[in-house]
């Protein structure tokens, strides 16, 4: 039981630390930084729970308590990274829904939506982020896939085939 309380408390603390960091100075590559930070918080939590006086011997009674903590922290870290990516770059569906809901009960037309949600908001930032992440590069005025981009595509193409998914986007 103490390991459950510690796991929940430690992840909450990690989230508070991340919010303070982001509000003070947002990193350029947010997703990669967030993942590294959350992964670093795992051994840090093990050290705190295992060696800090008052916690040592109470939080982790055996190896399974350590596994419980690691499993919970990794699961929450990966899920939170997914949520963070969605708030970092508003998804087109959320942008559209928010614009429509802002229009009030009288609603809005397709042209109203298009006037507010243009390429500068929805497409160009994603292209810039894709370049920053090293997935594509601009060579002689044309975008090309990098080796990293090819690997990224191959992983998701395999998932698409295994789960019989249509090509979306």
């Amino acid at each position: 039981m103490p390991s459950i309380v510690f796991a929940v408390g430690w992840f909450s603390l990690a989230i508070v630390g991340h919010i303070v960091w982001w509000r003070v100075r947002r990193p350029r590559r947010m997703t990669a930084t967030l993942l590294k930070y959350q992964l670093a918080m795992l051994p840090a939590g093990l050290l705190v729970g295992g060696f800090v006086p008052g916690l040592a011997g109470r939080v982790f009674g055996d190896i399974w308590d350590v596994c419980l903590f690691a499993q919970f922290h990794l699961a929450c870290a990966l899920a939170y990274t997914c949520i963070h990516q969605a708030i970092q770059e508003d998804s087109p569906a959320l942008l559209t829904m928010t614009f429509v809901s802002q229009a009030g009960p009288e609603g809005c037309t397709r042209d109203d939506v298009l006037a507010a949600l243009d390429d500068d908001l929805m497409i160009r930032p994603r292209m810039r982020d894709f370049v920053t992440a090293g997935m594509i590069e601009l060579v002689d005025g044309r975008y090309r896939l990098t080796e990293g981009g090819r690997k990224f595509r191959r992983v998701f193409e395999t998932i698409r085939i295994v789960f019989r998914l249509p090509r979306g986007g």
Partner: protein
Amino acid sequence: MDAWKFWLVAAPTFGLAVDVVMHLVATWIIGFRNLYYRLLFGAFWGGLLTLGLTLWAASERGLPLGETVVYALFNGFTLLVLSFGYFNLVQMNLSSLRLRIANELDEAAEGIAPERLLEMYGAHQIVDERLARLSRGGQIESRDGRYSYRLSTVYLISVAMDTTKRIVLGRRIRDSFRRK
């Protein structure tokens, strides 16, 4: 080594494994056409296994009822979080614009000019797709060429994401509109 505690702790990981296996069963053997039914089918069996393993291991260890309930809730939450990550991985294939662009670039050996990409995947096309998808799914109302919101799942998600964005990044989704 406490074998029962192993099952108690590892229940969500086994639950995720069953989730993935049953998702594949729903895809290849049962043949559900709807992607979300397949995911739900997997999640249902994963949840059942997690709960079953937790209750079984807790009773074998002789845990009191209160502790058993705490473990069941904790393991249920852990599985939910794991399944959410898995759902996002699968869902990315359907909704990621980056992936779509990566597919296009993979097929164009000489690369694609930025203007051409914008012609292919411009905001107009994405907005049209989203408006159609949200209307079809009953997430927004469409009448006489006007779109208005209704209390729906996507609306509630947008409110939750907006609140999270405000807390983490200090700005709201609608702030992007104001820049225009």
